[in-house]
């Protein structure tokens, strides 16, 4: 079944959910001026990895990345997939915990953290238990419901910009050594990993995935530049969630709602729930591959309960940030090693095939 549109929407949504929260603060913390440069490097890395990954996957039509390795020994491939699995689980923990905290920070200030963690986990576990088909269909629905709202808020957030804050354009390479910069890759990292998992269920055209990656470029830029243009670097670097602060200061006389932040945040949380369900689905696929006898729904339940307790056990935000930084190493594995090895195996396979026919 060809489902290019669904894959495209899924791709856009899970990135959108990640872009607007931690990404701006990380980029603003990593450099003093010329923010376009770190963003651009991030985008280039993203494109290179994405293209390599898709090129590699093209050698294996109708196969997902787990079955690509089906010929080799399971124990060997486990070494390959263990970091991926660990990364996915850590990503779930970080996302759940960080977003639960953002929700309490922005609107549910009296609500205890665990209820929000429970909500995020249970809804996403439910969606992911229904399989990839359901996830993609939910993505389609959420896109129709929430994307116009998001776009409206984004356009409105230009209200107070002063374009002169964008200069000076020149920049330096100092950001490369900053931990915050590596944390910013959280927004790029595993949005494309799912492309390797959906293959046997339905295929997609590469062109559309590239199109949606191009579609995301302005969002990456604006998420950082709108706070910079409104507040200036010196002030924006003081904010924990710069973009949310900007959305909070939007003043629209004719709108009957006082704070558009709520709409903005709720649509992004919906996207994040979707992203979480995708992460869970991938993790369960990997676990299920190695423990084929277990029922996926039990695994899912176990995983969510474990994650719930881990999230609950993390004492405060500083620790979340530490985990996010530690996760950088696994993340670079996921975005660099995985695409490259898939590509390499694919190339070798192709060469072998052509040799055999001769």
């Amino acid at each position, binding site marked *: 079944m060809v489902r290019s549109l669904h894959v495209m929407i899924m791709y856009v949504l899970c990135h959108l959910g990640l872009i607007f929260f931690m990404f701006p603060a990380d980029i603003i913390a990593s450099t003093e001026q010329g923010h376009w440069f770190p963003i651009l490097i991030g985008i280039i890395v993203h494109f290179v990895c994405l293209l390599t990954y898709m090129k590699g996957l093209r050698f294996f039509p109708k196969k997902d990345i787990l079955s690509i390795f089906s010929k080799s020994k399971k124990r060997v491939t486990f070494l390959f997939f263990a970091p991926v699995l660990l990364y996915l689980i850590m990503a779930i923990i970080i996302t759940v915990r960080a977003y639960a905290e953002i929700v309490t920070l922005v609107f549910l200030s009296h*609500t205890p953290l665990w*209820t929000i963690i429970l909500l995020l986990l249970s809804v996403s576990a439910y969606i992911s238990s229904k399989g990839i088909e359901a996830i993609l269909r939910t993505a389609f629905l959420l896109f129709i419901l929430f994307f116009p709202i998001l776009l409206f808020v984004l356009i409105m957030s230009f209200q107070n910009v002063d374009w*002169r804050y964008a*200069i*000076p354009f020149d920049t330096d390479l100092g950001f490369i050594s900053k931990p915050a910069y590596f944390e910013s890759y959280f927004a790029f990292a595993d949005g494309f990993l799912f492309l390797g998992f959906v293959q046997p269920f339905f295929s997609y055209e590469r062109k559309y995935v590239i199109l949606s990656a191009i579609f995301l470029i302005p969002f990456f830029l604006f998420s950082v530049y709108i706070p910079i243009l409104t507040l200036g670097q*010196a002030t924006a670097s003081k904010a924990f969630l710069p973009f949310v602060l900007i959305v909070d200061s939007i003043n629209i006389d004719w709108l009957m709602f006082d704070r558009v932040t709520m709409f903005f945040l709720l649509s992004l949380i919906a996207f994040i729930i979707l992203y979480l369900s995708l992460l869970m689905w991938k993790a369960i696929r990997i676990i299920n591959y190695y423990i084929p006898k277990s029922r996926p729904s039990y695994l899912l339940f176990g995983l969510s309960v474990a994650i719930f307790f881990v999230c609950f056990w993390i004492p405060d935000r500083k620790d979340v940030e530490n985990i996010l930084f530690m996760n950088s190493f696994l993340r670079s594995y996921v975005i660099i090693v995985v695409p490259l090895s898939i590509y390499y195996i694919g190339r070798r396979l192709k060469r072998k095939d052509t040799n055999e026919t001769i």
Partner: protein
Amino acid sequence: MKLSNKKVIYLICSLLTMVLILSGCWDNKDINHRLLPVSIGVKKVDDQYLVILNIPVPIDGSMETKIVSAKAETVSKAVDTISRNMESDVDLLHVKLIFIEKETAEDGINDIIAGLMRSRDVSPKALVAICDEDLQEFFNNIKINAEKKGLSTYNYFEKNAGWNPDIALTRVWEVFRGIHSYTHDVAIPLIRSGKDTTMDQIGSAILKRGKMVEQISSNETLLYNVFKGESGNGKMEVMEHATVMLLGSKTDNIGRLVNNDAHMESLIKMRVVILETKGEPSLNLIKEEINTLISERYNKLFTKLQENEADVFGMGQFFRNQIPRDELKNWRSDYFKNMKININVKIDIQNEGYLKTT
């Protein structure tokens, strides 16, 4: 589709848990148990903050105003104290105005603003005003006036209600930016309680890095708004030979750095309508009069600002690409103080009314 008994039980259980966690009603307080103040007054009394809240209370279809106050080490503590003493919970979500007493502002309001920005409930788009009399007295007068005439203080600042172009509209996030930005200060309306009207505006306070350093008149505030691009719509200008009404304005600024000295060229274009004349002045005479009036006022204002090193116009913005970031930090003291400003005013008389001017 027929559901088995087991499935029905599952479904009911999950729906019930959904009701519990999705309602978002975690220890919530109903609206009738909440007090929603529209304005807060803050005053510093020997290292403690006196916080006064103005709470509209609907009684029998009419609005009554309740004034409550408390003293504590921090603003939020004081709000908490009030909340504790009241029968309902004080919720700062809908605060529209923040009044700060003049002496407190002269001492610096960095902590208050930082607290407001950090707090989860005061919107960063609430307006800030400085009160030129005893805060307690001011709030009492507001109460008396509001009860007599049913005026709401907020309308005074509403752009679609009582706002005039000689009132500076400054929001909490702008004050916050003024504290941290290298090149931006703010002007804040200076308010007193009036005899016949709820409030009298007596000009604006100039805040430099969060400290009130100077006071400007209403006329000068108009110039500030014109320069900022808030159109000076509807404002009358009285001169020797004519009265004109401002329709709109636009400024073009070019900043140049010559031998490390800042030079500013400003061209202010104004569109006016002639309302009244004395005698029979020619159009050119009227234009000239406006021209001298406006440029004199601007020059006077700039001298005042330069003496105080307070860049409320954000002139530094025009030099951002010429001054390196390290030196931009000292923009106020190194460059702005000695900046040469050349102001040209261009007047377009759009309309003369039903009578011709000879």
